[in-house]
């Protein structure tokens, strides 16, 4: 067992690395640290161990990792050609050294408890020289920074790799300091936290005057190498021109770059697939909604036809029934009872009137759908019109007290037949939807340029969830009561009021029941303006 320099002499000058002046103090303290570290070196051949400050090291003959390794790979890959063989050797050595550089850096950062990137870098070249790889000379143009701008230019005098070639008297067509490049870029990558690659731009083993390296992020290194070679080539003779081609970006990083690009294009592809998928989903949703809407519309239409048929058949049943009843008596030559005759004819009259209204509604709907419902405005006494409706409605019911209040007279330019249709619809609804009777208040007022007709009942009202639907075509608020009708009345009424340039809406007073309010402008209808 041998112990060497347990107490390392403190070096006063920085002599294990050469760096630009501003960095010297930092590197000097790193040198102290590394010197102390290597001073605690214990070799125990009886156990087969070498330990430095508690870390195990191994010694490897430099030639076996450089020139001899190349020769070995060359002979193994002889059949694949020189280029391929060299690529295999280079990649192996670069990957290995890069990994070692990263791992060593990590260990030293932990041991030295350093956080700053330059501090983290500082022990690297010194450890490098203590471990016998090479001496390091960092040029003043270097700009080490933890971003895309990272640039380091440095020499490795006494590089173990070029040295091994030269000791054999061998010359290479390409730079040979692959592990040097891998290790230094690995250490720096770990120190700065950005991916870095080093390229040997000049090599003593291949006609260079020195072993010089350029280190930069993979995306930038080619540009730095090109700039360096371009700058050098100009003053030099043409025979050195081939050098540019001989310097190669380590395939390790080319591969890494390709992987990055692949990953990025993968991400782009996934994003596009995602976008397309969501577009398709949206289109599909739209289609599903449209189909559902169409189906709903078909269902509504179907239901309407069935309701309409029912509504038409009911008065028709009475019509035919009374007609056949009277006919039967006539055929038997019986003298008809005058009261029965009167009742029968009255029923026929009433039921045919009902049928007429239903048919009119159907025609109105078809006109509205075709946009052909027109109004013919005339100066009309709206109060007189409403009064006539109230009187007529009052005659049909004994359970309801229908009263008219408000203005004594109100002239407006309206279609009297259509407005009468609307008011009749509103008053009939008020009666129909208050089956237990009660008061129906009708009021006509002048408000600004409008005449407002309000019809209030104290009947069933409309459940809140149905309120937004009562003006819809075919809608019936009280299907459970089956109060009859085709569900067209309010829809048609609103369309007629719209055509007058007015509004029709519903209020649901606290006291219950419904108040329908129609307003029409006094002077001009919307239709007339057009």
């Amino acid at each position, binding site marked *: 067992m041998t112990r060497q320099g347990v107490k390392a002499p403190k070096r006063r000058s920085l002599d294990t690395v050469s760096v630009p002046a501003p960095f010297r103090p930092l590197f000097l303290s790193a040198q102290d640290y590394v010197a102390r570290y290597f001073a605690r070196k214990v070799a125990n051949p009886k156990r087969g161990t070498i330990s430095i400050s508690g870390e195990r090291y191994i010694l490897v003959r430099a030639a076996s990792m450089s020139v001899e390794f190349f020769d070995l790979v060359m002979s193994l890959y002889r059949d694949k050609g020189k280029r391929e063989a060299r690529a295999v050797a280079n990649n192996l050595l670069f990957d290995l050294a890069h990994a070692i550089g990263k791992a060593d850096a990590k260990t030293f950062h932990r041991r030295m408890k350093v956080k700053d990137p330059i501090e983290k870098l500082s022990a690297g070249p010194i450890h490098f020289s203590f471990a016998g790889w090479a001496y390091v000379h960092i040029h003043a143009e270097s700009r080490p920074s933890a971003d895309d701008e990272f640039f380091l230019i440095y020499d490795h005098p006494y590089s173990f790799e070029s040295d091994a070639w030269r000791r054999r008297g061998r010359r290479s067509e390409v730079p040979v300091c692959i592990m040097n490049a891998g290790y230094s870029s690995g250490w720096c990558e770990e120190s700065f936290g950005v991916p870095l690659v080093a390229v040997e731009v000049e090599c003593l083993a291949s006609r260079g005057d020195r072993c010089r390296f350029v280190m930069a992020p993979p995306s930038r290194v080619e540009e730095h190498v090109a700039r360096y070679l371009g700058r050098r080539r100009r003053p030099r003779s043409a025979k050195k021109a081939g050098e540019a081609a001989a310097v190669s970006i380590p395939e390790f990083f080319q591969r890494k770059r390709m992987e990055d690009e692949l990953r990025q294009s993968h991400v782009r592809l996934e994003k596009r697939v995602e976008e397309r998928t969501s577009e398709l989903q949206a289109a599909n949703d739209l289609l599903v909604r449209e189909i559902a809407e169409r189906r709903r519309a078909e269902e509504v239409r179907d239901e309407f036809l069935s309701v309409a048929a029912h509504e038409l*058949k009911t008065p028709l049943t*009475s019509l035919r*029934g009374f007609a056949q*009843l009277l006919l039967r008596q006539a055929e038997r030559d019986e003298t008809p009872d005058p009261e029965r005759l009167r009742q029968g004819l009255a029923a026929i009259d009433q039921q045919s009137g009902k049928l007429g209204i239903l048919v009119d509604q159907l025609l109105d709907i078809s006109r509205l759908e075709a946009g052909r419902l027109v109004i013919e405005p005339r100066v009309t006494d709206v109060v007189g019109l409403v009064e006539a409706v109230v009187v007529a409605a009052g005659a049909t019911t004994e359970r309801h007290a229908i009263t008219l209040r408000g203005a004594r007279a109100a002239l407006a330019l309206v279609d009297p037949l259509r407005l009468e249709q609307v008011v009749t619809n509103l008053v009939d609804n008020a009666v129909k939807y208050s089956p237990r009777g009660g008061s129906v208040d009708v009021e006509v007022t002048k408000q600004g340029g409008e005449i407002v007709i309000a019809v209030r009942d104290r009947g069933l009202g409309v459940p809140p969830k149905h309120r937004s639907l009562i003006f819809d075509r075919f809608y019936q608020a009280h299907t459970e009561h*089956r*109060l009859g009708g085709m569900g067209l009345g309010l829809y048609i009424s609103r369309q007629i009021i719209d055509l007058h340039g007015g509004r029709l809406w519903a209020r649901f007073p606290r006291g219950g029941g419904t108040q329908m309010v129609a307003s029409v402008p006094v002077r001009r209808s919307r239709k007339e303006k057009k």
Partner: protein
Amino acid sequence: MTQGKRVLVVDDDESIRDFVEMALTDDGYEVATAADGARALEVLKDFDAAVILLDMRMAGMDGWSFARAYKELPDRAPILVLTAARDAALSAADIEADAFLAKPFELRDLLGLVKRLVK
């Protein structure tokens, strides 16, 4: 023999109730009427109907509800469904009625069916 046989007419349309009642009365039936299912059940408490003419779509208690309630009673008369619905036969089958007529119907057919059912 139809004399004195009782018929209950259930329909929410007054005009239909009227002429059916007149026609049946002319033929010697004793007739009661009701505007919906609930009133029909009331009437049946002291009106021993030999046949019930039943409308399906009615304001208030409809034909389906009436049929359900009527099934619970001990003595049941045959039911003749009178409906303006598109599927009169289906409505009749729904409530297991004994016969049906689609509105509008021939008076002759109505009277013939009632005559057959009261036997």
